[in-house]
């Protein structure tokens, strides 16, 4: 037998180590469509419980929107279920190109290429456009999928302290001899909810002839006055060389991603990016749904406006209750608990109160930075937020962390 007792034992010990360290992740089964109100089986086998979801990336509340579902049904009827091919053989339909053109117009770029996911977009883009003569300079807190994509590419890789523009300038000077320089950042940082300083970044990059790549997965559809993303918020539309983003969050939440930006860079991805070349693209039914999402949000800013109001309400409520938050003005509002076990215990107590919010801890966030990441949606009504706030306050009291500083929480619960 190839899978010997020794091999099995090694993995069992490793898994036990993860468990003992309090870092073990467990899924919760949701029996309803994604929404503010969901029905959950947790732990496995437990009776279903109705809870308020405070941790979905369903920012615009479009994941189960009736018009999107209807469009997806129609897509299923008119374009079928599967393509059974990658794009460049016989896997491209008219609607794939239509969605690419819509994204180009929406993001204010030159061209767009769809990928099976944004993880795949990030995995493919660097290797497609850079060589060993180039350097990539990334923010230290960029998403794991960017880190993986950078690893797959032969360019030199350096990092800067989080959002430190002076450090960026030093690094651009240090690497001045490289053929091309590409600066990489998240638009909105997924774990902290803060926004990249794209205006300053673009100004510095213009000075040093560097390109800029932004992953706007947690921004596309709702950040900026008309929801185009962080480049709109920072006044640099047309100046970001590459934007990668996902359809798996605000834009319907099903799946898929894209690379959008300078025409030649996008074309290089079409020729070279391996996840595009070697994996089926987004299924027709999902493309049809996303097309409807783009229609809805291009016509009206009602949803992103409501999201902004909801997020401000939530942030103010948690602050007044006495929680330690990460600063920001996006719908990602991290409640800092620092200790991994505390984050899980608070999450469990919230669940008992009917609130679904997950604890995040190492390796998803740095050591001693454990937190509960709450995420606000346009699908939330004020009554949801009021109920969640009451539950957070009750649980905060139970653990005696309200009004306490970071140092006090760490003194009580450890790092």
């Amino acid at each position, binding site marked *: 037998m190839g899978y010997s007792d020794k091999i099995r034992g090694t993995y069992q010990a490793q898994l036990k180590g993860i468990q003992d360290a309090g870092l073990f992740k467990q899924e919760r089964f949701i029996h309803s469509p994604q929404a503010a109100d969901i029905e959950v089986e947790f732990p496995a086998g437990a009776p279903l419980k109705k809870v308020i979801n405070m941790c979905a990336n369903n920012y615009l509340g479009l994941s189960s929107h009736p018009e999107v579902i209807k469009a997806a049904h129609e897509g299923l009827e008119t374009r079928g279920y599967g393509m059974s091919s990658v794009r460049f053989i016989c896997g491209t339909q008219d609607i794939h190109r239509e969605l690419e053109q819509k994204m180009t117009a929406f993001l204010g770029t030159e061209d767009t290429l769809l990928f099976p996911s944004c993880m795949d977009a990030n995995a493919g883009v660097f290797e497609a456009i850079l060589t060993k003569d180039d350097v990539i300079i990334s923010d*230290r807190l960029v998403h794991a999928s960017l880190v993986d994509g*950078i690893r797959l590419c032969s360019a*030199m*890789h*350096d*990092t800067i302290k989080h959002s430190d523009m002076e450090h960026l300038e030093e*690094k651009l000077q*240090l*690497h001045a001899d490289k053929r091309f320089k590409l600066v990489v950042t998240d638009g909105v940082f997924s774990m902290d909810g803060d926004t990249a300083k794209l205006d300053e970044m673009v100004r510095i990059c213009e000075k040093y002839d560097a390109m800029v790549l932004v992953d706007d997965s947690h921004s596309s559809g709702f950040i900026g006055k008309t929801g185009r993303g962080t480049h709109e918020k920072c006044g640099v539309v047309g100046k970001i060389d590459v934007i990668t983003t996902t359809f798996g969050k605000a834009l319907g939440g099903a799946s898929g991603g894209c690379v959008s930006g300078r025409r030649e860079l996008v074309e290089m991805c079409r020729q070279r990016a391996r996840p595009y070349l070697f994996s089926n693209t987004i299924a027709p039914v999902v493309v049809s749904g996303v097309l409807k999402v783009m229609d809805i949000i291009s016509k009206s800013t009602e949803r992103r406006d409501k999201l902004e109001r909801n997020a401000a309400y939530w942030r103010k409520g948690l602050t007044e209750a006495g929680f330690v938050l990460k600063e920001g003005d996006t719908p990602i509002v991290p409640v800092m608990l620092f200790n991994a076990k505390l984050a899980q215990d608070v999450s469990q107590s919230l669940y008992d109160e009917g609130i679904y919010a997950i604890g995040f801890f190492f390796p998803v966030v740095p*050591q001693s930075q454990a937190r509960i990441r709450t995420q606000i949606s346009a699908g939330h009504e004020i009554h949801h937020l009021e109920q969640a706030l009451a539950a957070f306050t009750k649980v905060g009291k139970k653990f005696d962390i309200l009004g306490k500083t970071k140092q006090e929480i760490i003194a009580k619960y450890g790092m």
Partner: protein
Amino acid sequence: MADELKDMVLNYVTKEYLEDDSEPLTYDTPLISGGIVDSFSMVSLKRFLENKYAISIPDEEATPEAFDSVNKIVALVQRFAAKKA
């Protein structure tokens, strides 16, 4: 050159990688294996040292192990500086 080099590397690593509220470094603090510095970020230190001492450290020598503490980094630089002289 050893002490001066040691302090310079320590200062560089502190300024480049540590958060303001971190524990201070010693010459032997494990940097990469201790999770203080990720191995990517060593690139700038390598380039900085190469420029400063006009040496070239080949990639196969610039391993995470060779960069794992201030003392190890200093030993590496001295080895290449000696080669050059």
